[in-house]
């Protein structure tokens, strides 16, 4: 993972691109099936409708995100009040945006 480089980038737009790239790489790895290799994943991709992600795969996905972003991003807080259906019906962009926002507000010193 290129965590340090991602979080070091100051420009928000670039950072969003990098987070999306990280998230996409993790998703392809978690799903681990052939059909996902050629599928383009962008901010509008739905975990449920497009990726058909199982709820347990989202558990693994969130775990990998925690490994990647550590304490900078509070995934427990993010998922606290969401039902499983709400989680699975999210778009990839909602997770990316949450990570980007967390990185900007949480660690300004480390990010620059």
């Amino acid at each position: 993972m290129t965590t340090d480089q991602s979080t070091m980038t100051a420009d928000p737009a670039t950072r969003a691109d990098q987070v999306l790239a990280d998230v996409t790489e993790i998703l392809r790895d978690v799903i681990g099936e052939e059909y996902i290799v050629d599928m383009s994943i962008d901010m509008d991709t739905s975990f449920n409708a497009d990726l058909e992600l199982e709820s347990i795969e989202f558990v693994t996905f969130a775990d990998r995100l925690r490994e990647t972003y550590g304490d900078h991003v509070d995934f427990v807080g993010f998922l606290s009040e969401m039902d499983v259906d709400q989680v699975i019906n999210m778009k990839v962009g909602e997770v990316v945006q949450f990570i980007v926002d967390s990185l900007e507000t949480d660690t300004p010193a480390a990010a620059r």
Partner: protein
Amino acid sequence: MAEIVANGVRLHVQRLGPKGGAGPESPVVVMVHGMVMDNIASFYFALGNCLAGAGCDVICYDLRGHGRSERTPTGYTMADSMADLEGLLDALDVRRPVHVVGNSYGATLTLALGLARPERVASLTLIEPPFLIEGLGEEMARSLTQVLAAVTDEEVEEWLANSAGRAVSRITRASQALLKETTIAEDMLATPPFSPEALASLPMPVLAVYGANSDIIDQAEGLAELVPDCTLVVLEQHTHMVLREAADYLRDLLRWWLFRRSEPMPSHQVRGAGFDTPDWVRQMIPPPNLNSGDEPTTSLSAARAGSSAEA
């Protein structure tokens, strides 16, 4: 992925804590999911993150054979499952008494742990435990026979072809394999019944939650009568699937149970329109219909399941 070897079995574990991490005073909460058509995800989303955010040190795990944990060919008895859970607590170096929250057969296991190892348990939360004092194993068997009958090859293939997406088909196939390739069915048949004397001396507080429309609601009052310190919550309109149906309320209830028990219990608001439990959940997870093998159930093949249970 967090993997821990406990009792010689590789278990998938997710440990969740509040922002900044759990402290030495944080309540440790262990969540035990149901058998066969279930895994870590149900508690992880319904209560795990929520209670971690509220300040708990939460341990969610996949039971042996389920989710991302190792599928051993044997070792699915109540005693095995308890040894796995105790081994997990040891491996995580959890020495303080823990609050155990179980769903369905996971709640039955939770209750068994409270009886066998009271010194390790601070409180029990039992969500829809199939609970019989006499002949539990036998009755559990009938329920399992229904589950087994509900996942025969041809039916599953037909059902998958008609309706299921990738996510559903994967958990269906995993459950099918679990039932076919392991001793889980016969091990569950061997589940010993609970003794009423033991239940009457259960030392820790117990929170029992049932859906008013559950097939096993008639067991709720027996539990509340026997267990000395039992808070019984029966949720109107809800079914055996109450963990999924009423997750919002259960979050409030568990925050109250763990942090504010001296205050009044949060009230349950009945929603007029019913719930949004997807049909496939209702169809694929038959409630443990413990008391009659021949009444209609919501399983895929209720009629055939009933007749084969009788035979």
